[in-house]
């Protein structure tokens, strides 16, 4: 690393490292200690798979195989287990230096972004469930009201006197209007 760029390795808030294709860190910047809680001695003494969330090890192993073959990895995500037991989600970019048997990698902590994504997904699902429930609760009585009034107004239930026919017609017309308003409101709720 050229001398004028070397300070950036230590200053960076992102995780920067040089690793071997054997799955061990060769050099890590201080951001590793800050984020993960392990000392640099701990991180350098064990394979980096040891710090990974167990479900993510197999895909990470597959990525390492690709890196060994000379392919770069861009925006590869995995989870790591911090010293305090908490889980952080990292997005990695890595490039191999196959002649030297090394991998140069940088990672960004995307834990908060992932949590926000999940919260948004849950919120959207709750909204969909709410709309489905409210739609049923509004449209079911509308079906009965509109249906009964429509049958009365049509005369199939028997003839009505003029005043009754007028009253039923008013009620039926407004039940159709109300059904339309309900449709519009529920369509608006569905829009992002």
């Amino acid at each position, binding site marked *: 690393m050229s001398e004028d760029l070397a300070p950036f390795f230590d200053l960076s808030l992102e995780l920067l490292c040089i690793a071997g294709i054997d799955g061990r860190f060769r050099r890590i910047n201080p951001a590793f200690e800050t984020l993960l809680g392990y000392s640099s001695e701990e991180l350098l003494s064990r394979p980096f798979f040891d710090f990974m969330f167990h479900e993510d090890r197999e895909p990470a192993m597959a990525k390492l195989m690709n890196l060994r073959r000379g392919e770069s990895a861009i925006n590869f995500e995995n989870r790591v287990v911090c010293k305090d037991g908490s889980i952080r989600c990292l997005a990695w970019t890595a490039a191999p230096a196959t002649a030297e048997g090394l991998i140069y990698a940088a990672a960004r902590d995307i834990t908060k972004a992932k949590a926000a994504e999940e919260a948004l997904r849950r919120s959207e699902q709750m909204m969909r469930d709410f*709309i*489905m429930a409210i*739609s*049923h609760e*509004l*449209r*079911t*009585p*509308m*079906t*009965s*009201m*509109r*249906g*009964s009034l*429509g*049958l009365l107004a*049509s005369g*199939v*239930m028997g003839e009505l006197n003029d005043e009754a026919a007028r009253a039923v017609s008013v009620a039926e017309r407004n039940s159709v209007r109300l*059904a339309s308003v309900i*449709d519009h409101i*529920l369509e608006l709720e*569905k829009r992002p």
Partner: protein
Amino acid sequence: MRVLVVDDEEDVRYVARMSLDRVGGMDVVEASSGEEGIALAMKDHPDVILLDMMMPGMDGAATFLELQSCAATAEIPIVFITARSMNAEARRMTSLGARGVITKPFDPLQLANELTAILRS
């Protein structure tokens, strides 16, 4: 035509019955739950089943799948009635073999025509 109406709402069953009977001239039997609908379908062999999607306990989808899996009722065409927001689920049922969907609130003067049109399509 003999129609089995399966809906947990008594008032909706009433309106459907009046509409199909008085306007459409159809024979109507009613069931207030999925389980009752299956029992009546096996006993009466209606020409078509009008099935509500959202019912407590055994919902429309579960009732449909049960009717499809039973040799005695598998051939009876089934049309769902549902509020519009349930259309995605109703379309899924259509892809599994339901004949069609009628949305609530339906026009009581057109229910019989809509049902007939679905069965003919």
